[in-house]
């Protein structure tokens, strides 16, 4: 495999409700990522991630191209997925030798609709979607299964939320942050028992962009490139009643293929939009007590759909650039109850 590094990352502040259109949100983010990369346009490849259903408009990604810099014409593609998978496609393109540089971006506007209801349209259209189960209720099925299997409590989940919100205080882009205590959080009513508001990610709008560069060129433009030392993604059965919800088999497999266990991990940015999913992911990736989890505050403090996975990779890269980590793991997820997962290993020189 060729050496490929992340050399820049930018993201929008993750507002709960963003009234700008997708081009207006993306343009400054893409410009910032491009400026920081030290690479002049055009990029050899551009790839983006988004989903039409979030804002209810077909071809939202087509208009978003206005922000990318697509003139003269560029080699470009789009996944109807989180931008983390767009980054994977760009990494593959570089591996084929057809590109040395790539711009990856993603955007998501969830605020125009009722996101938990919109996400019900992701389900099997014959036997699940017609019941309109919301995404929080489905996650709660998984949470209960996990709590009952492990003997953990709702207090353990609240502690994850408290830590995330505290860590997000240093993240200027977080939607929510602050000092909370477990007892206060536990006094709140259930949203979908056993989950309370703090157990699920805030709904927000956002955008992010990343620049990838191959080989020595990365060293020329970046003091300490975040090298992609492994990247893999796996999916598992869709129907919730056909899999063991208390583990994440696809994350475990992707982590093994990416090589998480080959060396010590300093930091992990895990895309866990629900509190109980963080320990499920930690277990699947074999991340022990010595690993700093989600120093950005994670998805529990900012969760722009189709973007938060790419943000995990960008946040992990940031820890490599600033020297606070030598080896970082980034994770992205998609689908109900962690159906599809991507794992990316980043290392400093």
């Amino acid at each position, binding site marked *: 495999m060729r050496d490929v590094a992340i050399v820049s990352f930018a993201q929008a502040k993750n507002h709960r409700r963003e*009234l700008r259109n997708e081009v207006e949100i993306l343009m400054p983010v893409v410009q910032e990522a491009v400026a920081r990369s030290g690479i002049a346009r055009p990029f050899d490849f551009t790839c983006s991630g988004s989903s039409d259903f979030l804002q209810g408009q077909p071809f939202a990604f087509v208009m978003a191209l206005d922000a990318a810099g697509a003139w003269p014409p560029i080699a470009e593609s789009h996944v109807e997925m989180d931008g983390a998978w767009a980054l994977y496609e760009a990494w593959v393109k570089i591996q084929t030798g057809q590109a040395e540089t790539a711009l990856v971006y993603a955007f998501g506007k969830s605020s125009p609709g009722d996101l938990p209801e919109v996400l019900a349209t992701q389900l099997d259209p*014959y*036997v699940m979607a017609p019941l309109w189960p*919301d995404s929080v209720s*489905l996650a709660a099925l998984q949470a209960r299964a996990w709590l*009952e299997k492990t003997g953990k409590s709702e207090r353990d989940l609240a502690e994850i939320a408290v830590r995330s919100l505290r860590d997000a205080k240093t993240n200027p882009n977080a939607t929510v942050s602050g000092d909370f205590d477990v007892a206060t959080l536990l006094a709140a009513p259930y949203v*979908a028992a056993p989950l309370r508001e703090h157990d699920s990610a805030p709904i927000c709008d956002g955008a992010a962009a990343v620049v990838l560069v191959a080989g020595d060129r990365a060293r020329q433009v970046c003091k300490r490139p975040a090298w992609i030392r492994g990247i893999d993604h796996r999916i598992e*059965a869709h129907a*919730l009643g*056909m899999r063991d919800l208390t583990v994440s088999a696809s994350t475990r497999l992707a982590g093994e293929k990416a090589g998480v266990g080959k060396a010590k991990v300093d930091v992990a940015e895990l895309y866990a939009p629900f509190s109980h999913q963080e320990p499920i992911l930690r277990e699947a990736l074999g991340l022990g007590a010595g690993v700093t989890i989600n120093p950005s505050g994670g998805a529990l403090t900012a969760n722009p759909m189709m973007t938060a996975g790419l943000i995990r990779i960008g946040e992990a890269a940031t820890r490599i650039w600033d020297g606070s980590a030598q080896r970082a793991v980034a994770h992205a997820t998609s689908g109900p109850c962690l159906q599809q997962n991507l794992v990316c290993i980043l290392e400093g020189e």
Partner: protein
Amino acid sequence: MSETVSDEGGILTAPHVLEYPYRRSVGPVLGRFFTELRAGKLVGVRTQQGRVLVPPQEYDPETGAATTSDFVEVGPGGIVTTWSWVTKPRAKQPLAHSFAWALVKLDGADTAMLHAVDAGDIARMRTGMRVRPRWRAERVGHIHDIECFEPEAAR
């Protein structure tokens, strides 16, 4: 200005509805499932490895291999393998009052299916409890032919 259009600090917003009455062809396997539902029966299908999938699928989710033509009547009772409690149901959801979402493993099935459980109160819900379908009187061959599940103990 139209009353539905709002000016929010200079930016205009307006309601947008994405609506379509989708009509889905279901294929032979789900077709059998819905046909049996209309008759007040629940069936699964056997995989080549012998597992019984409920709802039945044309394929084994583990391997992609086609399932067999062996349909197996299951239930009607089953056990709740996990559940969550909805305090305020959304308009499109199966029940208008508080209810549980549950994965229900029907007797004779190897997989669990998603549906609502009308237990009245969260205190009546527990993992492992037995439930049975509450059938709609007018059935058309749809997942909604099961209005919901309800605790067996209620009967």
